[in-house]
């Protein structure tokens, strides 16, 4: 009997350990290929170079030529699109959460929340398709009306659609945070004659701030790592620009373009995708762990 127990227990432990193994495998595989890449292209050139043209570098005479693997335009593109996305998702998500937790009657909440959660369940490839087919032409039409020329793969289109995708995450996480604020605090404020909005601004949001910040960080992390929307709706050409109406490319777009289709595994081109993956993993890891610790601290506060 004891032996059987030991085996079962051991199995459970192995399962838990396996989750750590996944992380180790991720780090290991991505790091391994990245190191090979950095043997061809110096880290410095990759992180701070402003020229990204992996296609030309693939030709034999240019193999590993410096300057072609400068990832700065990709980083900037990612940041630009994520920034636009958060400009949409942060206020809309936060205000939705506020409305749901402080204003809407319970019945309304129970019927609205599942509908909004549907937004979170829509696969991102569908968002990408929507961006291309419906939203991009619409935005260009609006741009034409105001005499603005908007590229069909502009950062604006991609950013807005990505923002819509992130709204439900920000909403539901900050809603959780706000619901965790004890009713007694809200009552205290209301009892003093504060209006609802004053209670929200001065009591609920400050008390839920860690949770809200953590929600925003997770939203950003999601935006940075989002692939399908940008692959379908953002540009391919690496261009260093802050103009949201121009097409920019992102880290994930380049990973996909470098790796989809037939490839030889040893070229700098394919290895570059892993270096990009490593960077992506690193930044999202920092954001996720920060979000995790902030919200944990916060939870301890009210436990």
């Amino acid at each position, binding site marked *: *009997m004891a032996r059987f*127990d030991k085996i079962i*227990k051991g199995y*459970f432990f*192995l*399962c*838990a350990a396996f*989750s*750590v193994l*996944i*992380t180790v495998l*991720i780090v290991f*595989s*991505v790091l391994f290929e990245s190191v090979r890449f950095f043997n061809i292209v110096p880290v410095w050139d990759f992180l701070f170079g402003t020229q990204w043209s992996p296609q030309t570098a693939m030709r034999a005479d240019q193999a590993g030529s410096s300057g072609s693997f400068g990832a700065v335009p990709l980083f900037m593109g990612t940041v630009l699109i994520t920034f636009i996305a958060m400009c949409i998702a942060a206020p*809309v998500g*936060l*205000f*939705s959460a*506020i*409305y*749901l937790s*402080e*204003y*809407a009657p319970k019945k309304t909440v129970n019927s609205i929340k599942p*509908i*909004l959660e549907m*937004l979170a*369940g*829509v*696969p*991102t*490839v*569908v968002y990408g*398709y*929507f961006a291309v*087919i*419906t939203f991009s032409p619409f935005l260009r039409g609006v741009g034409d009306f105001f005499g603005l020329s908007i590229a069909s793969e502009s950062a604006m289109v991609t950013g807005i659609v990505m923002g819509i995708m992130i*709204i439900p995450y920000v909403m539901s996480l900050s809603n959780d945070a706000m619901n965790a604020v004890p009713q007694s605090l809200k009552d205290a404020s209301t009892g003093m004659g504060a*209006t*609802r*909005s004053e209670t*929200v601004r001065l009591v609920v949001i400050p008390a839920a701030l860690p949770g809200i910040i953590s929600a925003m960080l997770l939203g950003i*992390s*999601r935006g940075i*790592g*989002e*692939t*399908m929307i940008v*692959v*379908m709706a953002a540009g391919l050409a690496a261009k260093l620009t802050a103009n949201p109406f121009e097409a920019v490319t992102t880290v*994930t777009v380049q*990973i*996909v373009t470098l*790796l*989809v289709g037939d490839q030889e*595994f040893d070229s700098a081109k394919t290895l570059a995708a892993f270096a990009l993956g490593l960077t*992506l993993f690193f930044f*999202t890891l920092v954001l*996720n*762990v920060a979000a995790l610790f902030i919200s944990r601290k916060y939870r301890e506060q009210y436990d």
Partner: protein
Amino acid sequence: MIKRTTKIAMKRAKKKKNPFKFKLGSSKKNQVHLARRHARERRFRVFGFSAIAASMIFLLVFFASIIADGYSAFTQAQLRIVVTFDQSLVEKGNYRKILQNSLKQQFPEAKGRKQRFMLYKLVSKGGVNSLRKLVDNNPQIIGETDQVWLPASSLIDMYVKGKTNNEVDESKRKIKDLQIKWLEELQANNSVRSVFNTAFFTNGDSREPEQAGILGSIMGSIFSIVVCMLISMSIGIGAAVYLEEFAPKNKLTDLIEVNINNLAAVPSIIFGLLALAIYLNFFGMPRSSSLVGGFALAMLVLPTIVIASRNALAAVPPSIRFAATALGATKVQVTLHHTIPYALPGILTGTILGVARALGETAPLLMIGMVAFVADVPTGILDPATSLPTQIYLWADSPELGFVEKTSACIIILLLILGIVNGTAAYIRKKFQYDW
């Protein structure tokens, strides 16, 4: 600007005369202050409401546009053609020629290579298969002449559905005036009809939009989900049980916890890179297969399942465990006989939500090549395959007009499946979850 708002505030303050003779309420300054606070309150409320409304409107526009684009893909135009089943051609198996001859006969005015070529384009290339099937099922037709309903080509299908722009100059559109004339002739004879598009549900992918179907991608999705669930459930539930029931409170446990929470937020494309490097390059597993796709997805949904299962286990009250322990059960027995069974509905719900996530995931499958053009419906987990989302991606990339409605239709199907899956999860949660 500031003066204006003050004035408005004053006006409001006057209108809303307070019935109390409050010391503070009576002073003008305080009335203005109060009116401003109320204005701010209203604004805040409007913001909140608009935020919700914005999401709702988006959802509405989103569904409306997808459905408007996609519903037409569920029907398919057919043309009634008078076909002569020439014996020698049937024996040679040259059904193409049979079809072409029949068309020529029906529209003798098509002269020259170019016009005849245009004529052949009325009927789908799949029409040849329909003829062959007809003869196989019904051999006595050989040598006869009969009216046969054949699928129209995408070109005609789009025209019939009104999706083509016919205002532009002929040179700028695919469908030519002559073809329109022929089609109108057929329409005049009641020889054009619209039927339910079964091919869409029974075919694999195709280069021809009217023959392209989703069966291949559905099978691919099913295979990879089955692989994914077998792996992620057996590991995920185990991990959850360990963390919730057995794990000592120490640094290692803490690390595993942080690690799982982090994994849940790692971009999905990273899992694709991992699968590419480990499964394809290191272990040499077959590229584009649902097996590798399932492996990649398994790692992706593992954290979802672990977290959901843990919550379910944590909801089982400790008193139940105490009761079983007091009867002399070992910790493992308590867990296997009591805790897990009671937590099962919650675990199942979490797992189904994991399925939903895996069903919609695309990026990791791009990395392992589940985006190739696969015409054959896969029959096993080692066959090259696509999945519903990658099929959407592939079709979205196709330039032909005919694929627009197919893409949207595929999205409708995917969303329906996701709806059913999520609905099941909600049902199980409602129906079976114990209320402690």
